[in-house]
């Protein structure tokens, strides 16, 4: 009986751990995209009048 | 067809010619294989009565270890000296490049084995072999499959940082049929106990060899294009 519960526990821990790491990766990438888009947007504003502004990355 | 075979032979001869200048790869590979005979003898402390039982496995392990290093080295030299690119200029089908290299590696391993078999037989106190031709057949079929997959994977990993470590890790799991089949056939040849299973092993080795000569030959082009 113990083996049975340990077995199912390991399956779910494994799957949830993987799922969690996917969620974190996606979250971090979305934040990066937001920051990059913001940087890109502000550069286009400053770049419009004349000299291109320095990259913020 | 005839021109194609000539091209394959010419490419293999080219490699053999380059090797004959120094015999570097051959000497390194063969001496490592022979060294392993000594290492195994002491590591497993084998009594002479058990020699025949351990001989096939020990021999195959040595061939695989030494052969992997030898093929990795050969591919590495090709890469560094740009020989691969040179050969790629030859007006032949890409698969001929693969088969030529494969044939060269097969010949290289055959020489190594010719030296290793007597040394291993002595180290494991073998009292003769019941069916020497079966031993040779097993070694040949196993080595062919090993050379075919080894050539494919060594060529592909040659340009990488982790070459030395990556090759055995990717190659050995694929070679399980060769390791088991080669050892089983050699074992049957040594003891003379030929069973129905021996025939199955031989068929398995032939299927492996043909499959893993044909498929890499087909895929080699897409692998090597720049």
């Amino acid at each position, binding site marked *: 009986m113990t083996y049975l519960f340990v077995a199912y526990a*390991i399956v779910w821990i494994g799957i949830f751990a993987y799922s969690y790491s996917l969620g974190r990766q996606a979250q971090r990438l979305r934040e990066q995209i937001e920051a990059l888009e913001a940087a890109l947007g502000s550069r286009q504003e400053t770049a419009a009048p004349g000299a291109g502004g320095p990259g913020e990355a | 067809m005839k021109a194609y075979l000539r091209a394959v032979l010419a490419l293999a001869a080219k490699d053999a010619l380059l090797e004959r200048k120094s015999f570097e790869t051959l000497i390194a590979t063969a001496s490592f294989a022979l060294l392993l005979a000594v290492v195994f003898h002491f590591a497993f402390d084998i009594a002479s009565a058990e020699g025949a039982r351990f001989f096939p496995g020990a021999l195959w392990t040595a061939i695989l270890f030494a052969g992997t290093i030898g093929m990795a080295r050969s591919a590495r030299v090709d890469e560094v000296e740009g020989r691969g690119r040179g050969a790629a200029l030859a007006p032949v089908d890409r698969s001929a490049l693969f088969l030529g290299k494969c044939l060269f590696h097969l010949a290289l391993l055959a020489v190594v084995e010719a030296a290793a078999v007597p040394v291993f037989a002595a180290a494991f106190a073998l009292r003769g072999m019941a069916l020497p031709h079966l031993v040779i057949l097993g070694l040949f079929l196993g080595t062919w499959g090993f050379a075919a997959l080894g050539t494919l994977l060594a060529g592909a990993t040659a340009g990488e940082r982790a070459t030395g470590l990556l090759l055995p890790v990717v190659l050995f799991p694929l070679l*399980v*049929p060769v390791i088991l089949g080669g050892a089983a056939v050699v074992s049957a040849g040594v003891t003379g106990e030929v069973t129905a299973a021996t025939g199955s092993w031989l068929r398995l080795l032939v299927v492996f060899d043909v499959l893993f000569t044909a498929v890499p030959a087909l895929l080699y082009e897409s692998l090597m294009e720049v």
Partner: protein
Amino acid sequence: MLRVLVRAQKAVGLSALVLVTVSLYMVFVYAPREATGDVQRIFYYHVATAWNGYLFIAMVALSGLLYLVRKDEAWDAAGRTAAELGVLFISLTLILGSLWARPIWNVWWTWDPRLVTTLILWFIYVAYLLIQAGAEGSPRLKRFAAVFGIVGFLDIPLIHYSVVLWPRGIHPSVLRESGGMPFPMLLTMIVSVIAMTLLGLYLWGRRLEVEELKQRVQRLKEQLLWP
């Protein structure tokens, strides 16, 4: 084609959740207690994870072939991510098998052909991931990974046949006796397999989405550096 998995993530995930719940109920309540005891209930998820492992391994080979033919980066990503899931499910299969073997055969591991084949598969696809780990930005290594995925897949029947032939591998085959499996057990097994497959596809969709996001970050960075 694989975009569908990313877009339909929610739907796939939701149906996976429902079916997993149903399958867990069936595994622990509905399925009858077998002669060897409750431990036998490991069997349902053991089969389900193994099936998923093989499914994703087949996907690795298929993606590799399509990558070589079409040269589309999306298929490289598909192969890479499928291999990750394949290794995850094969690992789970091995652990479940070990936990089932201990109470029943009194060993953690036995050199049964099916176990050995699965273990070697695990090694092959870990090797595949190692190749892919160094392949970023190197089309040559990506093609190598594709070729390796195809060759590895073709090798599976030969590996299995060779371990079956090996004289010390004689062990009673568990699954082969399942011809006489009672209907409730069979049904539980089928539901578990379908539930796990949906769950696997859901995870694959999310993994592919991460891959898409990575590409977007890459593109944005390039835009920022070289406008």
